[in-house]
């Protein structure tokens, strides 16, 4: 494979916020400092080098950028203060833009004003659309689903989900094709090659790493991870993610119970009722995580948070609003008298959450998809053929 330089990429990269990329003189400190990199997947320097020379295909086909958890250690030790962690974040932004062929992702990364506007308009659209279906606002108790029928929300949600799933699949397909090309994987190597650890890789890519945050927890040897657990970097991230998943699970359970006829959506339940318990705990974790993340970015507490591009803010804002509004609704639900603002807050909550989900493949949120795919590729190894031990070794 010939590698032809492309001088435009580095300039392009800077538009994704790679502020220091040109400063790098390739000393390798960042890569050697990183506790997550390995000889099978070297970063950040490899990514930086590809960007410096403009090797687009190699960047878009790399899984390395998704293995980074943005701990910021590389940026702290960089002798040229080239901000490698930030360059990695820019690379992810660049990849999100390029995997999404619809061009919406590009707006969020490159034209954040338009991106932000889209998010707001979309939320307004969802809100307005649901408002057209409104019914009554009961004042004696907060009957949210009398205000907007849950059937309607469910249907709208499902439609959004399907659209998101389609867009996500398309983007993932793009990513997989590029990754396969860059790593010389063809249908033939998959079918005719050595046996692969398909299942273990899946387990690792879905459960061990993202859910268990194993490497973030155990290997990121940074100051913050040595602090008390609830302030450690990995926990904040995990709290956000677990919280979010908890909320999704609670909603899904609620819906499931409705379908199987155990409990009607919106029926008042005690706090220990499983879906509600999961939802409340998830919401707490989620709000805590997102709030800490926002504060860190706002205060630029460390190297990893000292450069925030607008797309970071849009994503965090969507997360935070959907989390905090959910909580306010929860509070409103248990107030002795149903406040009118509870309904508005509910409407707000549903619109923001739908926007968040709807924009998943186009915003920074997409990392949750790509990271899993990349982790899968990373974990995928040929199964070693165990030969029966020969008698009498040399």
């Amino acid at each position, binding site marked *: 494979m010939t*590698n*032809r*330089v492309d*001088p435009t990429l*580095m*300039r392009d990269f800077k538009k994704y916020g790679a502020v220091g990329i040109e*400063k790098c003189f390739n000393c390798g400190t960042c890569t050697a400092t990183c506790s997550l990199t390995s000889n099978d997947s070297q970063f950040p320097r*490899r990514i930086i*080098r*590809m960007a410096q020379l403009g090797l687009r295909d190699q960047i878009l086909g790399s899984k390395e950028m998704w293995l980074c958890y943005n701990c910021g250690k590389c940026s702290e030790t960089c002798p040229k203060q080239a901000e490698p962690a930030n360059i990695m974040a820019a690379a992810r932004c660049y990849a999100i833009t390029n995997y999404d062929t619809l061009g919406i992702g590009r707006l969020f990364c490159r034209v954040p004003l338009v991106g932000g506007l889209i998010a707001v308009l979309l939320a307004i659209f969802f809100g307005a659309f649901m408002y057209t279906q409104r019914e009554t606002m009961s004042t004696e108790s907060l009957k949210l689903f009398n205000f907007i029928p849950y059937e309607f929300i469910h249907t709208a949600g499902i439609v959004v989900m399907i659209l998101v799933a389609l867009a996500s699949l398309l983007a993932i397909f793009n990513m997989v094709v590029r990754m396969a090309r860059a790593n010389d994987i063809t249908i033939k190597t998959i079918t005719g090659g050595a046996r692969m650890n398909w299942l273990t890789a899946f387990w690792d890519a879905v459960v061990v790493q993202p859910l268990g945050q194993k490497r973030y927890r155990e290997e990121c040897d940074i100051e913050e991870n040595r602090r008390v657990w609830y302030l450690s970097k990995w926990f904040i991230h995990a709290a956000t993610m677990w919280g979010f998943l908890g909320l999704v699970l609670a909603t899904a359970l609620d819906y499931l119970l409705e379908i199987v006829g155990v409990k009607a959506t919106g029926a008042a339940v005690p706090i220990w009722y499983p879906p509600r318990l999961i939802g409340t705990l998830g919401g707490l974790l989620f709000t805590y995580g997102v709030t800490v993340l926002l504060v860190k970015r706002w205060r630029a507490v460390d190297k990893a948070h000292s450069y925030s591009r607008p797309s970071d803010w849009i994503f965090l804002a969507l997360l935070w609003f959907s989390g905090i509004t959910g909580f306010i609704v929860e509070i409103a639900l248990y107030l002795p008298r149903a406040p009118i603002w509870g309904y508005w807050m509910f409407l707000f909550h549903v619109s923001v959450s739908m926007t968040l989900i709807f924009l998943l493949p186009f915003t920074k949120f997409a990392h949750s998809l790509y990271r899993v795919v990349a982790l899968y590729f990373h974990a995928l190894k040929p199964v070693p053929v165990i030969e029966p031990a020969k008698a009498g070794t040399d």
Partner: protein
Amino acid sequence: MPENQQPRIGVYICHCGGNISGAVQCESVAKALKGLPNVTITRTDESMCSDAGQSLIEKDIQELGINRVVVGACAPMLHEQTFRGAVTRAGLNPFLYHHVGLREQDSWVHGHDKTAATDKALRLMSAGVAKARLLQPLDPIRLGAEKHALVIGGGVAGLRAALDIARQGLRVTLIEKSPFLGGRMAQLETVFPTEEEARALLHDLIQKVTAHPNVTIFMGAEVMGVSGYVGNFTIQVKQHSRGVSDDNAEALMSACTQEVPDPFNYGLTKRKVIYRPYEGCYSSTPAVDWDHYDGRPFDVNGWPIELKDEPKSFELNVGAVVVATGFDPYTPPQGEYGFGELPQVVTLPQLIRHLALSKDGKSLQWNGRAVRDVALIHCVGSRQVDGVHQPQEDGQVNNYCSRVCCTASLHMTADLHKRYPELNIYDLHQDIRTYGRGHEEYYRHALEDGVRFLRYNGEEVPEVSPAPQGDSHPVLVKVKDMLTYGEEIEIPVDLVVLAVGFMPRDLHGLDKMLKISRGNDRFLLEVHPKLRPVETAVKGVILAGSAQGPMNIQESLSAASAAAAKVASLLGRGKVELPPFVAAVDVEKCNGTGACVEACVYEGAIALQTFNENGEEVKRAVITPANCVGCGACVAVCPNNAVNVQGWTLAQYEAMVEAIGMDLPAMTEVTA
């Protein structure tokens, strides 16, 4: 005088900080030497040349009545003078000292065999002792010195040396081969790290030099012959005619039609054979390029005027010579990185001139095309590897680093970026060597300006070839980039710039005339990089600037000022001392055969003179010590053994040879 007494020899063996003691058992040698006749004391020391070591010798001379001293240490070139100084301080004649080179002649070459090294040390030392027994006090040759120095070369180093010598109150003559002053510096635009205008600095310097009452300048002049010695050199100079005068210059210049490639612009442009290299040059009077002028007359207002070079020859008497002859940029052979084959390949000096000539324009133009992508290749003509690069005429490759090119290249990329911000620049290097004060800043700027750096391995140099038909760019550079894990990277470009190194200059025999030597790198050689960094082995001949090796302007200036300091120390007192190791005739033995005169190759060193001996006219050889170099040619041919080189007499040699061959009783004991 203690010298006339029975010899009392002090023998000292230096460990040389492990250099000698690492191979030679110094203590055993000292012990064995103690038994030799006339040896009063033997000592060893970690470092004889240190103040403590020297004091030891002085003390022994004063307290033990030592009257001959032998030191076994490093090469005599390094510290013979040091010990002569110590001996003198103690009140002994400095030539009652003998130096044995135990390091270069023994420990450094026999480090692997300690027994043999010790044996050899003992033999060398006993030879030294044998010679010391026969040493006689001598007097150095004291001569008046011209308080006048010659500086050869009118570039920045020569100018600076001339100015600094003049400022020390000495007279200076500066001769420059070309008809104009300024040398290579005039061809530059700005200089790093200050970004000042090169010519502004240069003209300031020229102004100071020309205005100084102690300085005389000859342009268009070259050295044709050198004779004499420190303090009293006679230099034959030939100065070419300028060809034109201020009165007729303009008319002749406009009448001149013959054009030749302009070396000032490295052949990028043409100039007339009556020329000024650039506007504002010194001297402002144009000159005729005699090498290229075809001799045809010029038509000035209908009158044919023919110009003729009528060189003047004259002699200068100077006390010292500063060689500031500069360097040449390396010219790649046809085909190296496409040079001379692809029109898109230029050298860095050429590009500097090109940019100077094309001041305007939004984009860089080359070969009739706008340039968007440039590759800059470092180490062209430097850091060459045997078997990879084409050797020079002498069969050697330029294996040295040219020191200046890295910063000069990045200085260039800064300039390019400033003028043409859209340009894409690729820098192909082995190591970036921005070592000097403020130089690393150029590297930082280059990075921040978006210059892409690629690193090649010296044994796999980049490949420059024409791009295939239909490619976006005319030239394709391929490099195995070590920063990209050794992957082959393809760079399509419009221009390739070769950062060429420094080449030692052909001095057309000047080095031979001055009897100075060149090092392995073919640059002029100093005595010792630390002890005497700007002096040559010929006393009174001093180096300044890049004739000695690659240097930037700042370093050339320092070297030139250092040279001036040496000249000032040498000539400031108006007298010099020469070593007394010259031929001496024993008139008792001489019977005037004249064989010695025939054998002598040094003018005026030995001659037959007629004497009246008992009323009889006899011819006897007479030495003029100042002209004798002590080569010994006369000694070898004299049938009567009537000539000897003082301090190195035949008798002394015989004693040394005998001592070396002898098996001392102690020797077997020592080396067993």
